[in-house]
């Protein structure tokens, strides 16, 4: 359990954020300038806030009322920075070992060999950071944080400085971290697809305040929190079969889903992020459409947004599916809560970065 409440006044910005999150990956989501990094730095102790309380499990990092303000080096964190921040004068091996020098003897720690294997950095151990690519640096940075025997891992947009190909390379490592490492992770991102793939819990920040918090599936469908353009749903589905025509057949609670070939083996449970603006609604069962995915469900909410749009939420076999349509359409269709409705999703609208391995812990 991560319990954070922080207040800090800057000259032109006030951070006043509080949230609680269960174990797993907690993503701080928001636009740049919303206070995400400030909040993470407060957790790290790089910023001493005016007041607040930060606890990871029974480990108190900050409690201004009780006069507890741990120095950063006593907080037992693994902080993965946006720019890696590897020590240029040390080899990869020495960088990885750095945190372990200072960790208390007997602290529960990851096996270095396993971490090196998990991150695929065995061939880099003798090199110095100057000789690494951006993606390699970031993998080493992840390893360095992991091996410091942390009680909490912080990651501040660890993929932001990488191009799309490198992002696709690193993201699976965070999924494995989430699924294979016990340490809770606080992850800062402004990318909705990263949130959808990684988050167990989402904390949406805006202008230094928490505007939404809760399980990823719930917050992601919330247009208020994600911004109308970012609203999306996350469905969990099992890979049934990869077909020869390049499509993968998935089984979701609401029925079969057909997606461009996903990078997961048959039988694996994956998460699929479906942007709300890629969902088409129909009152009658659609026929003669090119789109392969038809899910039927019930309208649970219709929320008019600013401008011409409205966000319609459906219950499809127990999952939430959000659709962003115009208010004009909603009226013309006579949509109302409780009505049966069909959702249509084009297979090709789901990009590979929207598909990731499911967070087992959050779904059990």
């Amino acid at each position: 359990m991560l319990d954070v409440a922080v207040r800090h006044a800057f000259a032109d910005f006030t951070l006043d954020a509080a949230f609680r999150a269960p174990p797993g990956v907690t993503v701080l989501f928001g636009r740049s300038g919303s206070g995400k990094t400030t909040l993470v730095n407060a957790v790290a102790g790089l910023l001493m806030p005016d007041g607040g309380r930060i606890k990871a499990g029974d480990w108190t990092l900050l409690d201004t009322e009780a006069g507890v303000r741990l120095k950063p080096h006593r907080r037992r964190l693994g902080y993965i920075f946006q720019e890696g921040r590897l020590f240029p004068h040390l080899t990869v091996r020495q960088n990885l070992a750095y945190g372990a020098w200072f960790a208390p003897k007997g602290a529960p720690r990851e096996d270095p060999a396993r971490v090196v294997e998990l991150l695929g950095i065995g061939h880099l151990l003798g090199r110095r950071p100057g000789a690494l690519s951006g993606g390699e640096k970031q993998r080493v940075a992840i390893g360095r944080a992991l091996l410091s025997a942390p009680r909490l891992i912080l990651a501040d947009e660890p993929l932001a400085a990488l191009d799309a190909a490198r992002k696709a390379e690193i993201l699976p490592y965070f999924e494995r971290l989430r699924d294979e490492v016990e340490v809770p992770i606080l992850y800062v991102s402004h990318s909705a697809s990263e949130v959808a793939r990684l988050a167990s819990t989402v904390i949406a920040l805006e202008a230094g305040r928490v505007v939404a918090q809760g399980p990823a599936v719930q917050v992601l469908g919330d247009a208020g929190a994600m911004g109308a353009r970012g609203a999306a749903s996350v469905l969990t589905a099992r890979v049934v079969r990869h077909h020869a025509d390049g499509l993968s057949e998935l089984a979701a609670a609401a029925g079969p889903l057909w997606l461009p070939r996903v990078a997961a083996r048959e039988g694996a449970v994956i998460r699929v992020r479906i942007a709300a603006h890629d969902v088409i609604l129909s009152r009658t069962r659609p026929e003669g459409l090119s789109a392969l995915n038809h899910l039927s469900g019930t309208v649970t909410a219709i929320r008019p947004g600013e401008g011409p749009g409205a966000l319609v939420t459906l219950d499809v076999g127990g999952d939430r599916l959000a659709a962003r349509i115009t208010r004009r359409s909603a009226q013309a269709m006579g949509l109302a809560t409780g009505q049966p409705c069909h959702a249509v999703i084009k297979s090709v609208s789901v990009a590979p970065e929207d598909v990731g391995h499911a967070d087992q812990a959050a779904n059990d």
Partner: protein
Amino acid sequence: MTDWLGPAEWGAVALSLRVAMSATLVSLPLGVFVAYALARWRFPGREVLNVLVHLPLILPPVVTGYLLLLTFGTRGPVGGFLDDAFGVTVAFRWTGAALAAGVMAFPFMVRAVRLSIEAVDPKLEQAAATLGASRAWVFVTVTLPLILPGIIAGTVLTFAKGMGEFGATITFVSNIPGQTRTIPLAIDLLLETPGGEARAARLAGLSIVLAASALAVSEWVSRRVAARVGGA
């Protein structure tokens, strides 16, 4: 050999080396500390300290020597205290020559180290702190290795300056053979002595060789260090 340089001149060379090394050794930790303070800390009196450190660079050396005499002379406030409390006298001793050399070279040391500290990304030091390193450990394991080239440069400059200091030394501790007659003071004396030009020239040549060797060694060490730190 004795024809080439007399024992008095060899004495001056040995003394110069001793003076320059002592001045360097003492001002090294102090210089790194002051450079770190000036580069990283904000404290009242920071500007005053900055001016004070640089004063020997801009004052006439004679004035610096005179101020040292006033302060560290046996009747000066610090000199008197050192004499009373510890029986230590720096006036007219080789230790005084080392003090003068150290003070004159201090701005060089501080500038070289400070520049290299300012080039160290504080974000790396933050990263070290989040990994569990206390401030002292961050300095030893991250800052110090990264500023090593600057420290080497500062050390060589200080040593070279210590070998060559003239004005403040002669004003503060006079020209005493075996105590304060370093190479430049010996050259100065030889030039005023009939028939001393040849020895003066040889001493001058020797000091050029010493200075050039120090520079060459530091270049070599710096390149090795830079190759390690740079990584690429």
